[in-house]
């Protein structure tokens, strides 16, 4: 099979939530001599972009995105040895996701975690009602790796503790080892600048784009 065909096959498997298909096509791509870097850039990344676009126009929903995320992770598993050899690290990186204050409205958080997963991030989901101590602890555990913090705030009060998160990161000397993005209904770009975070997004698809931008820097 020509390389382009394999690439298309992998991309389609990802977009069509084929969790076994991505494994098979990734193996074929490696066997055909492609690098992990090429496979990610030519098949997986564009595939993920399609998923994000489809979600934004309400063509697919959470069940499909979660399955594509799984298909993506399966492909990454196969690529891991090659990635190590090529020294391209942890895919997009590790994303630590959390909601600052407990609430039943964790839909945004759920979608962001899933979209980041579908974009090659290894997700560490800390869940809802997460304290700054827990966040700091998790960042420490992953020091030296490419880490993104993605926090949601549903209310104005939990938005206030985003500021505390940044302060705590600075105090622990960890601010430079993570990229920090915050989202949620009350969060504005102005607020992000004010507290010294790195980015925000209006929705889960945008969150994935911003996250990739931030971690590529």
């Amino acid at each position, binding site marked *: 099979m020509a390389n382009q065909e394999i690439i298309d096959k992998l991309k389609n498997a990802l977009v069509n*939530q084929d969790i076994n298909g991505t494994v098979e096509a990734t193996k074929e791509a490696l066997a055909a001599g492609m690098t992990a870097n090429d496979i990610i850039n030519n098949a997986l990344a564009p595939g993920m972009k399609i998923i994000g676009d489809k979600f934004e126009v*309400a063509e*697919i*929903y*959470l*069940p*499909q995105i*979660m*399955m594509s995320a*799984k298909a993506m992770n399966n492909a990454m598993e196969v690529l891991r040895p090659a990635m190590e050899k090529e020294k391209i690290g942890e895919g997009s990186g590790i994303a630590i996701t959390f909601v600052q204050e*407990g609430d*039943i*409205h964790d*839909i945004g958080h*759920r*979608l962001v975690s899933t979209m980041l997963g579908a974009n090659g991030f290894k997700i560490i989901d800390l*869940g*809802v*009602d997460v304290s700054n101590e827990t966040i700091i602890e998790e960042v420490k555990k992953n020091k030296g790796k490419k880490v993104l913090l993605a926090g949601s705030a*549903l*209310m*104005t009060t939990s938005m206030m503790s985003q500021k505390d998160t940044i302060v705590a990161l600075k105090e622990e000397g960890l601010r430079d080892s993570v990229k920090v993005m915050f989202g949620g209904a*009350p969060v504005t770009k102005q607020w992000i600048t004010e507290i010294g975070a790195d980015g925000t997004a209006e929705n889960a698809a945008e969150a994935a784009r911003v996250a990739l931008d931030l971690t590529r820097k």
Partner: protein
Amino acid sequence: MVEYTPKERLARALKGQPVDRMPAVSFTQTGTVEQMEASGAFWPEANEDAQKMAALAEAGHTVVGFEAVRVPFDITAEAEFFGCKIKAGTREQQPSVVGHVIKETADIEKLSGYDINKGRISVVCDAIKILADKYGKELPIMGSMIGPFSLAQHLNGDDWFMNIFTDEAFGQALIDFTTDFNIAYAKKMAENGADTMVIIDPTASAQLIGAQFYEKFVVPYHRRIVNAMKELGVATVLHICGDTTQGLALMEVCGVDAISVDQSVNVATAMDKVDRAIIIGNLDPVNVLWNKTPEVVRQKSKEVLDAGVPILAPGCGIVSKTPTENLRAMVEMIKEHRY
């Protein structure tokens, strides 16, 4: 014009029949710290003890002025009943579900044969009895429970969203199981005196799962619950969080009397989207009821009333720290409103 009791008024309003004025009720969680202080019944004890639960529910009527009493204050008693790990609540925070108990079909079988008279769901039923004995002739007695789709998510965890996609047989088996439970639980609440049933199904959102999955995994199950309640003469209200605008037409297919929408929905648009269901909503519990002044509450209430809302109410559960004066401002605006 005839003056109705609050009970008659709400029953009529939910059926779209003419009433003397708008009923002042909250279909979502009513407990606040100020009401806890006034009644001496505090979270988390008021979630566990029937007397305290009833006392705090009563405060919604005696302190705030709501023309109904409503229990419980959270949506985790059902998952707790089936053994899910629960993160305990505090005075200001409701408990939340953190562990799940169903992975596969065999796990469902293990959980069947339960005794509905046990656990915190039975406390809720006892509280309803206490409230019905005291207020049942005069006030609507509202029971609320988590809906079958969100209960399935509590039991199965986030895999639930994938399982409805990849394993239809399991999906159907689990939602059947949760629906059977919902019906048995709702019937018991009705037996104990509940005349209005609020189904809170936050994750059953068409915005989240799309219309196709909603039609398959939500509509038929809501319909079964609604029909069971109709047989008992109990009114039904469905609350789903988030921007449900595009899902409203599907939400009413189950035959529910009324749909409670949150603040991300435009009330006028919502009313256009439905055929028959009464739209309830939708003051923002955080950015209006909790964090603003009575003056702003009155202004925002007026906006929603001017948009023609059939029943003005909070858009979702009231935040525990909400000042009573803000809730009273909303109640006053409702009571002054004539259709």
